[in-house]
């Protein structure tokens, strides 16, 4: 078994399928909790601490909903990143755009710009540079036209944002079944993200999505469009749903 040190660590490459070594010389954006170890002279500071002072960081990281879940690593050394034993892959964007599930993004070079996606729970990376994403099992690349289960979707590149496809036959069958009392609650199969156009869709094998702290803030922002009466109706429905789930 090889023992890895500062000189033998693979620089800018995977150490094994589950950990990646970033060769830091300058700054990198790193998701909170993704760093497992580092060599060298590296300082980790919250993005919030920079965004007020450093216009450069604010311009690169333009998603207030996610800002508190990210840190800036600055200095020189090797930083090891990993996420719950999931597979970690690095992606190189060349003047491109890629949208990825926010909880699966581990880090990105500051040459990329991060923006909040229209689809809740996702962020978009723009520009040229490297970023790291984790996935449950190796990433599966498919080409549109493709319909993906929302929970298995890791991200998409170069194609238009998805629309939501409702499976009419499934819903009709479920409804009839629900009336007979034979079938339980919805499983999510009746709703898929529909991708069209040219590009690539990234999938993983996971139907369990990690709690995304930014998702609440993103959804809350969207509820600003509701009137006061609608907001009260929504609050009541959410409460009823939680009580039903908890039994």
């Amino acid at each position, binding site marked *: 078994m090889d023992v890895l040190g500062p000189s033998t660590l693979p620089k800018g490459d995977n150490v094994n399928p589950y950990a990646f070594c970033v060769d830091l010389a300058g700054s990198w954006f790193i998701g909170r909790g993704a760093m497992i170890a580092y060599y060298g002279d590296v300082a980790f500071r919250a993005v919030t601490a920079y965004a007020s002072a450093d216009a450069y960081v604010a311009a690169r990281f333009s998603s207030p909903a996610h800002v508190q879940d990210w840190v800036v690593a600055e200095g020189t050394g090797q930083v090891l990143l990993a996420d719950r034993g999931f597979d970690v892959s690095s992606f190189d964007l060349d003047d491109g755009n890629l949208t990825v599930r926010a909880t699966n993004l581990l880090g990105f070079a500051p040459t990329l710009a991060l923006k909040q996606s229209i689809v809740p729970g996702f962020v978009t990376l723009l520009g040229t540079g490297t970023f790291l994403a984790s996935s449950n099992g190796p990433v*599966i690349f498919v080409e549109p036209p493709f319909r993906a*289960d929302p929970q*298995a979707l890791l991200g998409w590149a170069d194609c238009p944002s998805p629309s939501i496809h409702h499976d009419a*036959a499934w819903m009709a069958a*479920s409804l009839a*079944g629900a009336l007979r009392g*034979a079938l339980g609650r919805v499983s999510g199969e009746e709703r898929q993200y529909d991708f069209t156009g040219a590009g690539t869709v990234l999938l993983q094998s*996971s*139907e*369990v999505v990690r709690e995304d702290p930014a998702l609440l803030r993103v959804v809350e922002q969207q509820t600003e469009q509701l009137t006061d009466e609608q907001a009260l109706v929504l609050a009541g429905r959410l409460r009823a749903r939680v009580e039903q789930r908890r039994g």
Partner: protein
Amino acid sequence: MPFESVNGKVVRAHLGTGRTVLSRRGAMLGYQGEVAFRPVSGTGGGGVRGVVGAALAGESQPMMAATGSGSVLYGLRGLHVTVVDLDGRSPLLVEADRLLAHDADLQTSVQLIGSGGLRQAVRGAATGQGLFTTRVAGAGAVALLSHGGTFALPVRPGEVVVVDPQAYVASVGALSVELRARVGWRDAVGRGSGEAFQLQVTGSGTVHVQASENKL
């Protein structure tokens, strides 16, 4: 055409020319082409007794059928997927919750495992190994879920293969699977290794074992 392994955790099923695939509900990751899904009730046909038996044993999973032309990706919670091809002569025994997907022309039924009566049932409850199991018969492909992947152990006549109940995934062939207790004095004083319960497999066929003691 059997399932195609995309990676250790995902399989792709090609539909068309009358091929229907049954899968666990919630296991569809995505699809290409004109594919229609419809919910079907769980395994354990065979009338009221079958349904009641399935409910008693927990051998019932909500399933769904995929028809049409195109390809569907299946996977569940990042669990490893093993594809087993059945030749039509040997049935497969598996717990229903490990069944990810299979060809719709395979027949599934709920079967009593072992023949120990009530004592066996109590032991089954103690080990988490159900007394009832799902029997899959016919020719076709089955995708099984496991924790950390499976490997196959051959069973030859005259040999006994002993498997930890937690590591047992499925068995194919003319096999008899029996639960045995082997309690030593260390177990009696609470210092046992936890290996007091074992599944003894005899006959001719293959046992699929996972390299983990995690149940699904």
